[in-house]
């Protein structure tokens, strides 16, 4: 499954310190083309920090990452061009219309002038936004805003998607919609296989979408295995989560 050369995301000994706090400690993993990986861990485990490093938002204190063959230090722009990123806090300009916003994102993601309008149309359509395309983002519901967030992540058709808690703060119906949308976005289309890493602490989400689980706790990787292996013999992800994470935080995790 993990053929050499087909790997699209590689974290090599990533560490990140904020002052004295070690947020991520020596985390390494390789993710192959087309894999959909659930990045699990309790709050404060270091998921967001790791994803911010993979997306080039901040450099690691130690180690490096390779995105689609581009090192984040030596080829930062090329690496960032290959990533679509949905941050934990939606990066929206509330005063813009959906179309104007996506066009702007397409521009700064280096989508060629002529390809821009079709790229925006495709993102609108795939994320179910065509009807609200002329609306001002600030007037949209939380669920639609989340869709706009996903649309900006895919507008430049990146080979890698990094989604940080994509269903956070949504109601159950919206959660179902967004999960379906993520499943659609990751199904192979036009022969383009997207590689996805998505963080969550909602376990059913992982079971619904992902093929593989990477679990981190207090900045360290503790589990990295295919989902089917982890849930074989009727074992549940919940037990695993409770066993592998620091206990007092694990108790807070449910749903």
């Amino acid at each position, binding site marked *: 499954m993990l053929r050499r050369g087909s790997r699209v995301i590689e974290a090599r000994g990533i560490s990140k310190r*904020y002052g004295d706090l070690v947020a991520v400690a020596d985390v390494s993993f390789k993710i192959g083309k087309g894999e959909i990986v659930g990045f699990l861990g309790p709050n404060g485990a270091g998921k967001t920090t790791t994803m*911010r490093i993979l*997306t*080039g*938002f*901040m*450099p690691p204190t130690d180690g490096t990452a390779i995105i689609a063959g581009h090192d984040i230090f030596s080829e930062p*722009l*090329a690496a*960032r*061009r290959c*990533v679509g*990123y949905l*941050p934990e*806090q*939606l*990066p*929206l*300009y*509330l*005063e*813009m219309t959906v179309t*104007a916003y996506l066009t*702007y*994102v397409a*521009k*700064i*993601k*280096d989508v060629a002038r002529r390809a821009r309008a079709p790229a925006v149309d495709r993102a609108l359509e795939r994320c179910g936004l065509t009807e609200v395309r002329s609306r001002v983002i600030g007037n949209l519901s939380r669920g639609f805003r989340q869709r706009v967030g996903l649309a*900006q992540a895919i507008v430049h058709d990146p080979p890698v998607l990094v989604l940080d808690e994509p269903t956070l703060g949504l109601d159950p119906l919206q959660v179902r919609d967004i999960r379906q949308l993520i499943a659609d976005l990751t199904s192979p289309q036009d022969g383009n296989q997207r590689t996805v890493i998505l963080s969550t602490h909602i376990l059913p989400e992982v079971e619904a979408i992902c093929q593989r689980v990477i679990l981190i706790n207090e900045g360290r990787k503790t589990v990295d295995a295919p989902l089917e292996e982890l849930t074989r013999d009727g074992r549940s992800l919940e037990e695993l989560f409770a066993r592998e994470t620091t206990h007092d935080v694990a108790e807070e995790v449910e749903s």
Partner: protein
Amino acid sequence: MKHVVTVASRELQGLFVSPVAYGVLSLFAVLAGFFFILGVAWFSDVVVRAQQFQAFDVLADLNLNDRLIGEFYGSMSVVLLFLIPGITMGLFAAEKVQGTHELLLTSPLTIWDIVLGKFLAGALFVLLLVAVVGFYPGLLFFYGDPELGKTLSGLLGLLLVGWIYVAIGAFASSLTRSQVLAFLISFVLLLCLLLLPAISELGVAGGGASVGAILSYLSTNTHFEELVRGLVTTSDLVYFAVMIGTFLVLTKTAVETARWR
């Protein structure tokens, strides 16, 4: 560098969608009108009195450019000192609060693209403000004969002063996520810059003339006044370029450092 214009045009759109830009523009136009009318009233009063008293030496000394337009530009530079921090405070701080700087910094943009784009947006807005200022002395050409050269070089001075203020405001905004704090930081920096000659006079007593000369060279006002007097020299233009460049480099460094923390 190719994304500078993209970043700038989004910034300007954001500015003009909000009521703030229009508020600032109208307030500015009203203040400019007020100071201008005040200046005209004072000027004609002096002319009338001088004629009544046949004071030809006073009349000969009266000159639209120095006594009216120059003073007017001076007042407007002080108004800019209050207004520009209000325009620039959001340049970086607002992106941090909205979460959009995470989008900017994970896009294939260089930090210079972002910093220069933000500066360009602010610089164009100030160009608009200076055009508003220029309208008033423009009226005088119908009623009197001010010198065109001096009128324009003074406007250029105002524009360059405004651009320094934008660079300083951008720097302040890059340091924090609070717009209020960004406003205060840039306001304090601008005040220091304005008050440097006063500080230098205090300094002469203790520090020596050379320190005083340096401080007064650093002051924006020294160079602005030269331009208002119609003296466009390379050394003044270099001063403006160096000040703007310095604060843009500082801004770029601040954005970069925040990323590494």
